[in-house]
Each structure stands twice: as structure tokens, then as C-alpha cells.
């Protein structure tokens, strides 16, 4: 393809390679560019030559007192190890073998090279908004949302019932309660007074009941009855101190 220049980063000559480490994106990037400088297909590069170039490059960088990031040194150490393995007589017990490692390095370089090339080819495509254009002033498609209201007849009638119930004139009904009327109490207290000989507590005159409401009503009515009978001069009242028991006895 004619756009080769665009797709592949320009191969730097040796002088350019010597300048600095700032331009490289890590040791793999540097290795790939060194490999490309061999000007052969990546399949055919000499790994040994590549290792040599890399180590020489780092040596030169050191000589120029350039700051070298740790990962470059790690790669250098690994490449030096690989080189020595490749040069030593074959040891069949080493796994993976140095050749295998060299092959993997080559594959990594090919892979990075392929992605670099793919990225450049992507960027060189007819890109929307740069080379091809969509409609400049689309009318736009409208989505009109409509509510489908969920309500049944029962909901409607219940709602009306609710309104009516809420606004009905309030009618207050006092629920039936068991009470002892004053008349009953007067009768009861006078009858019981006749039987009692000495001071007796008013409570003693109350009927036996399990209904606390009736008991309270009976107490209140009996108290008023006692006051009424005292007013009539039919009984005497006595209380030793405030809130003490109320005692009654026949006045006769």
C-alpha cells in the first residue's frame, strides 16, 4: 500500500537511536525499533544481533549518563541471560529452552508490531466527522411518550366512596357504657348503711364487679350519693388526712 509511511513508524538510523531513551515507550518499543532497523521481516530477525544491539544501546546511554529506567535494565539483564543461554552448549533439561524463549520474544515483537500497524491503519480509514460526514442538520426522530393510565372501574367507585366517606357530616355516637346512676347509688348506699354498725370505708359499699369501667362509675356515683346523704343528715363522713380513706357511718 502506498501509505506505508503512515502506518509504520519511521525507522530511525543508528544516530537517532543513540540520542535518548525518552522517545521510547518502554524496552519492548525500543527492541521493536531496533529489530526494524535490521531491515528484514520480523520473522527473520536475528535475536542474537538484536540482543547485541540492545545491550550496546544501553551501554551508550550509560556512557552519556542518560537516566535509564529500571525496566530497561531488567530487560537488559534478561537479554544478557538469553544470550548466554543461546551461546552455551545445549542443555536439554532447561525448560523452556533458550530457543523457545527467543521465539517468544520474537512473537511479542511481531504482536506489538501488528497492533501498531493496525492502529495506524485504523486511523488512516475514512473516519466519520473527518473524511466522511453524516447529515449536518437532521430533523431528528421524536419519541412521543404517552401514558397508558392503569385504572379499573372498582378503583373509580372506591375513590368516590372514599371522598363521600371523608366529607360526610360527622355524627358522634357515644357507645353504651355500663354505669351506676346516682339514684341507684343513693339507694344502694342508704340500704347498706343500715347494716353497717361502725365507720366503714366507702369502697366497702361498692358492688363486686370485673368491669373496671363499672367499678369507676360506681365509685364516683357512690361518692356523690354519700355527699347527698350527708347533706340530708342521714350519714356522717370522716377523713383523717387528705387522700386518706373516706369513712362513712349511719348518722342515726
Amino acid at each position, binding site marked *: 500500500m502506498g501509505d506505508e509511511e503512515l502506518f509504520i513508524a519511521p525507522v530511525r538510523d543508528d544516530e537517532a537511536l543513540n540520542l535518548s531513551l525518552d522517545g521510547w515507550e518502554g524496552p519492548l518499543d525500543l527492541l521493536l525499533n531496533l529489530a526494524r532497523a535490521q531491515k528484514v521481516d520480523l520473522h527473520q530477525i536475528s535475536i542474537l544481533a538484536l540482543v547485541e544491539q540492545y545491550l550496546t544501546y544501553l551501554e551508550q546511554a550509560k556512557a552519556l549518563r542518560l537516566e535509564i529506567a529500571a525496566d530497561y535494565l531488567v530487560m537488559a539483564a534478561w537479554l544478557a541471560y538469553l544470550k548466554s543461554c543461546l551461546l552455551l552448549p545445549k542443555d536439554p533439561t532447561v525448560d523452556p529452552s533458550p530457543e523457545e524463549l527467543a521465539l517468544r520474544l520474537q512473537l511479542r515483537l511481531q504482536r506489538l508490531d501488528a497492533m501498531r500497524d493496525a492502529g495506524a491503519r485504523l486511523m488512516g480509514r475514512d473516519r466519520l466527522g473527518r473524511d466522511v*460526514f453524516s447529515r449536518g442538520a437532521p430533523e431528528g426522530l*421524536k419519541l412521543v411518550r404517552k401514558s397508558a393510565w392503569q385504572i379499573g*372501574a372498582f378503583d373509580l367507585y372506591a375513590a*368516590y366512596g372514599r371522598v363521600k366517606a371523608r366529607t360526610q357530616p360527622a355524627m358522634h355516637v357515644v357507645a353504651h357504657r355500663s354505669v351506676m346512676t346516682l339514684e341507684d347509688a343513693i339507694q344502694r348506699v342508704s340500704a347498706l348503711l343500715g347494716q353497717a354498725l361502725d365507720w366503714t370505708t366507702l369502697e366497702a359499699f361498692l358492688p363486686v364487679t370485673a368491669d373496671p369501667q363499672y367499678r369507676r362509675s360506681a365509685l364516683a356515683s357512690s361518692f356523690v350519693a354519700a355527699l347527698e346523704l350527708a347533706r340530708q343528715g342521714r350519714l356522717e363522713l370522716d377523713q383523717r388526712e387528705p387522700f386518706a380513706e373516706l369513712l362513712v357511718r349511719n348518722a342515726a
Partner: protein
Amino acid sequence: MDDLTRAVEAALFASDAPLSIDDIAAYVGEGDVEQALAALAERYVGHGVELVERGGRWHFQTAPDLAHILRRTREDARRLSRAATETLAIIAYHEPVSRAEIEAIRGVQISKGTLDVLMEAGWVKTAGRREAPGRPLLYATTPDFLTHFGLASRRDLPGIDDLKAAGLLDPLDEAVFQLQLENESDEG
């Protein structure tokens, strides 16, 4: 289609505003832009898109008869609010009825939106004005209302006695009832 016409077509398509002949010429360079425009306009006759001129500026637009397909309606199921349901019920039972009357019956004010929702749903319509001070606007139900609720006419609405029999007029609101019970147990 010749190169000039293609270029004019692309320029008009990509432009975010209608273009004058000079504008177009600035894009496409040498050539008879007017003739290209005429050729293009003819090409697009019968298409879903047409080339039109407005005040000396040209642009593509979708054919007017297709305007309806450019909007799509989607129905979302939603529950009618309590206020809207009550308002609808009051209108149905008392129509024609003014807003003030609805509020008096409900015992609570209604927002403008409540009536709008009912009108948008197609169940309520305005029904003239009452000849009374302030000439209040009146509301009534629509035939769609009857259809939706399966009623042949408004006479089919259950009467107050029916509602009472169904327990729908029970004055004791659940919440209030609960409160009373609690008060009593406090006293005891």
C-alpha cells in the same frame, strides 16, 4: 451522476445550515452549481427526502407527507394518582362540575396538573362555563371514559346505596380507626 452534482449533494447533506449558491461554490469549486442543483432536485423527486430552496438557500428536508413517521408514540403503563382518581370520580358523579365544586366535594384542593392528566387521558373534557359569577369552567366525562370503564351510560354508575352496600362508604378510615384503638388502650 456527475462529479459536480455529487459534490453539491454531499455539501448540502453535510451542512448544518441551508447553503446559498455561493456557499456551495466555495465547497465544490468551479462549475455550474445552479444546474447541478436543478439536476439534484429532479433526482430526488418521489424520494422520502427532497431538495428545497428557501430564500436563496438550499437544503435537504424529509418529505412533508412523511412527517408522521418521524414521530413514534410509546405507551408507558402508569397508575393514576389517588388525587386524579378521586377527581375523575367526582366529575363522573357530579358533571358538569367546576373546579371549585370538585375541591369542595373532595375537601382538598386539586392541582392544575390533575385535570390535565385526566384530559390528556381522554376521559375528561371541558364542558362550557356556568352562567354564574366568575363564569367558572365546567368539566365533564367523555365517551372514552364510558368505554374505558365499560359503562353504557353515566346512569350505570353505581348509586350511593350500592356503594354503601359494598362497604365503600364506610366512614372509618383504616388509619383513623387504628389511632382510636391506640388512644383507648392508653387510657385503660
